[in-house]
């Protein structure tokens, strides 16, 4: 069978379902049209296919051909008359995350590594129990009570290096086996063993007949080596094969795809990694969803001096059980409200701010109609990303030196002005140096990683042509700045030979117009003590930059970002920065902001 000519891509989120048509146009795969609907796996519909069909029907009306038949089945392959598609890819994050209890020997070796594996999978850690937590934890009654209270769906057992500790790990197995034995079969959690590999047979024996056991490679094969990826892959597989399949209507959608549904976070991570490797860039992608936020890094510069990830390191993708929709309450449980409202030019009363955000959680599909609501949601988005960064660090790319920042998720890609998105990325990620900023306005970035699994070239072509909207280039200085004093001198030479020079004071955000498609050459001369991304304060740098919706955004507020202390100065500064970004050239093109069918870049021939 040849390469599929047309692909239907369905991304079923916890709140919204996006369906996109990718087709061959002038010999290349292009994003053609998109349809959206609310996700319908919940009451009163309880069938995910309904939302998908609504999205498909919207695409049908745009492209003028049928994709499904009268019975609601996908027409596949594409027919001579033009109806149908050649392939279908489905990704989803619609299922609730797996409730996982981590169980280990000590809290300083295996358990953190197991937690790292969990962070890269669609899981929610509901408990972490260790044998060395005190004398009380030598009593099996303590374990039973704890496990019954947290009621995990999966228990992950870790501990012992390969060939290392045995008896304590066996004791752990016995405790969990006891817990399982005392539960009715349908209530027993799945047990995932990822400890001392030499004890895998003992684990099989301990859980024989009292529950399901899955085994992954040891997360700590030695004290010096972390091996998180196999456990992450195991949890991903469980989520894909069990949790997603329980979503009402999903099995029928699997028939459309003739392949397992891909886990959305994994697909997004694959895309980011691919972009980094293909274009030899250090890339960070943030997909801010309703129920979950995914952070993915792709380290593509082998010679940059940065640590290059190995396949055994799953730290390149992390998922947080926090979002700006369904998981607002989880986010507010972890992030103090003051950290959110500090980003607002007009600080609302705490109970009003909290009620507004919690109500967004009750109506996750809803959108902001007022500036105040919009700024509050984006403030929460900032803090969710900052919270993830604080826990994740940046093991692959230190210090925020990313060449490319990719943003996905409706709260940012559908913001009424590109400046809002740029402001969030600047405040949340605190990039240093020169970074390009792109947004997934097509709504398919999350699925392109899965598309690449069946048709890599199609994914490449869509990435290069249609998937992202380039907002422009960010230039950020690191170090302590003095507001008002010169922080950066820059010289911009455009392709047509025009040169402009500017001296920018510290503490500001400045927009320099540079239209989409235009390139320029930047000379950057930071003030003493400030680093413009070369790793040494005061050292000049040059960069080839690209324009975009916003142009060139220069941020001389310094890193780490410190908001002005004085109340009046603080709010005034926030207002000023935002106004600067909103005053640029960046209103989102109407067709990319539409929340129904979008005619893409081209029409199929």
């Amino acid at each position, binding site marked *: 069978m040849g390469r599929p000519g047309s692909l239907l891509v369905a991304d079923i989120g916890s709140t919204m379902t996006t369906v996109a048509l990718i087709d061959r146009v002038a010999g290349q795969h292009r994003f053609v049209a998109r349809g959206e609907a609310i996700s319908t796996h919940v009451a009163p519909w309880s069938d995910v296919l309904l939302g998908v069909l609504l999205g498909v029907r919207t695409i049908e009306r745009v492209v003028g051909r049928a994709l499904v038949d009268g019975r609601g089945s996908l027409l596949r392959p594409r027919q001579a008359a033009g109806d149908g598609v050649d392939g279908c890819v489905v990704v989803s994050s619609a299922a609730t995350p797996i409730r996982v209890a981590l169980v280990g020997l000590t809290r300083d070796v295996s358990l953190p590594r197991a937690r790292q594996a969990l962070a890269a999978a669609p899981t929610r850690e509901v408990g972490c129990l260790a044998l060395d937590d005190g004398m009380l934890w030598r009593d099996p009654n303590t374990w039973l009570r704890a496990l019954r209270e947290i009621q995990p769906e999966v228990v992950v057992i870790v501990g012992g290096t390969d060939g290392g500790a045995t008896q304590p790990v066996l004791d752990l197995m016995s405790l969990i086996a006891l817990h399982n034995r*005392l539960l009715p079969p349908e209530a027993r959690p799945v047990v995932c063993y990822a400890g001392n590999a030499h004890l895998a047979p003992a684990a099989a024996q301990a859980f024989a007949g009292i529950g399901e056991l899955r085994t992954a490679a040891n997360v700590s094969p030695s004290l010096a080596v972390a091996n998180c990826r196999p456990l992450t892959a195991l949890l991903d597989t469980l989520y894909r094969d069990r949790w997603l399949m329980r979503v009402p209507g999903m099995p029928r959608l699997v028939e459309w795809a003739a392949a397992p549904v891909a886990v959305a976070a994994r697909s997004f991570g694959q895309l980011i990694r691919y972009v980094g490797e293909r274009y030899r860039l250090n890339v960070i992608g943030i997909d801010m969803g309703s129920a979950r936020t995914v952070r993915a890094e792709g380290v593509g510069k082998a010679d940059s001096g940065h640590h290059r990830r190995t396949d055994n390191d799953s730290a390149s993708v992390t998922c947080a059980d926090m979002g700006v929709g369904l998981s607002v309450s989880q986010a507010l449980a972890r992030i103090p409200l003051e950290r959110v409202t500090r980003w607002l030019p007009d600080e609302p009363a705490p109970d009003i701010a909290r009620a*507004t955000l919690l109500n967004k959680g009750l109506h996750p599909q809803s959108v902001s109609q007022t500036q105040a609501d919009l700024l509050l949601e984006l403030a929460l988005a900032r803090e969710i990303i900052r919270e993830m960064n604080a826990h994740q660090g940046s093991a692959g790319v230190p210090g925020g030196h990313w060449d490319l920042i990719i943003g996905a998720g409706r709260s940012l890609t559908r913001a009424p002005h590109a400046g809002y998105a740029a402001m969030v990325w600047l405040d949340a990620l605190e990039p240093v140096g020169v970074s390009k900023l792109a947004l997934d306005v097509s709504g398919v970035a999350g699925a392109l990683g899965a598309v690449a699994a069946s048709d890599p070239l199609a994914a490449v072509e869509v990435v290069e042509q249609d998937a992202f909207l380039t907002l422009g280039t960010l230039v950020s200085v690191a170090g302590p700045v003095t507001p008002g004093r010169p922080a950066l001198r820059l010289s911009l030479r455009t392709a047509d030979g025009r040169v402009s020079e500017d001296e920018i004071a510290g503490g500001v955000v400045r927009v320099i117009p540079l239209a989409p498609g235009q390139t320029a050459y930047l000379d950057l001369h930071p003030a003493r003590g400030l680093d413009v991304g070369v790793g040494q304060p005061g050292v000049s740098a040059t960069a080839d930059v690209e324009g975009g919706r916003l142009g060139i955004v220069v941020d001389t507020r310094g890193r780490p970002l410190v908001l002005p202390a004085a109340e009046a100065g603080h709010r005034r500064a926030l207002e000023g920065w935002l106004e600067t970004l909103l005053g640029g050239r960046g209103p989102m093109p109407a067709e990319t902001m539409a929340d129904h069918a979008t005619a893409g870049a081209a029409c199929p021939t």
Partner: protein
Amino acid sequence: MPDLAAEWLLPVRRCVSHIEDVVVRHIPPSAEVLVQVDERVSATQPIARLAAGRGTDRQLHVVDVAGALELPGRDLSPVMLKRRGDAVQAGEMLAVRSGRLPFLYRPCRAPVGGRIVAMTHGWVVIETANAALDILAMVAGQVVEVTAGRSIAIQYVGALLEGAYGAGGLAVGTLYCSDGTANAALSPEHITEAVHATILVTPGCATREIVECAVTVGVAGIVAGSLSVDLAGAAPLPVIATEGYGRLQMAVDRFNLLRGLSGREATLVAPADDTWRGRPATVFVADAAHSADEDGIPAQQRFDRPARAGDRVCAVRAPFAGWPGQVSNTRPVAGQTPITGGLQGLQVRFDSNAPTDPEPGAQVQWVPWLNLERIG
């Protein structure tokens, strides 16, 4: 521009005075079914039962017999005096390790009374208490389908109101509207012994003060327009907020429905367990005058079609949060403000200038379609 609004499926929070609905109660595989098809059930009637010892909330105590007796290899077989299934009393000997010399004699006694349910890895597990766990119907109606080990479907006929948020479990009581007007605010002084065991309806915000008063006088549950944020996740009795959090007034559609049902027995369902699976918190008022076999039952309301002109809707975000109205035009229209310029929406004819204003104001406003929910 093609009329594409026909594809816009809106979220639904049903608010209907008469509906025939099937409520599926999910049951654990090992639960015993207590009802049969065609049987009529009440809301508080057990429909399935997890036998004693099968639930997840058993009272268990683990005795480390092997540790107490320092048994090599943790093998209990040579020392146990009791077997699995035996009842034991507190202080009774479970096992004894004896040797040739008197001082090697070492007993292990049960620290609690109960029944031995497991012996493994040197541990003896004593179940100290067990009770059957009943799964209640939660809605009054007629059983229409029983799938053993899976679910029981109950056909319900009556009024139904779904809330935006609910917590606290199940409440059954007489529906009591605090006042005749939709924009009245309930104050703690109104919560007297007269509302004991009722399901109290207030169109305004259920504040902490109101909830605490309600608990004091023994109110069964509360249906309010909104819930104070400081009660988020912590309401001490079953509560449903129809609009959300904060100071939102109950939409007049919803209040009028509940006011019309005042004095009737109602069930408030806001459970946290998996047996309700995916349904929103709901108020049910069963219509005892109808049965599944009578003619003239209104057709099942269907919410799986896209929005149409004339559909009753309610806005869910500022500046129109809680405002009910009707879709006046399904032609998609773009927003006109800097914030909404990129969004598509519908024209909605709101009932009035405010959610509880009884005077018809016939305001037509543009609302993003994502900010609307159908209310029946």
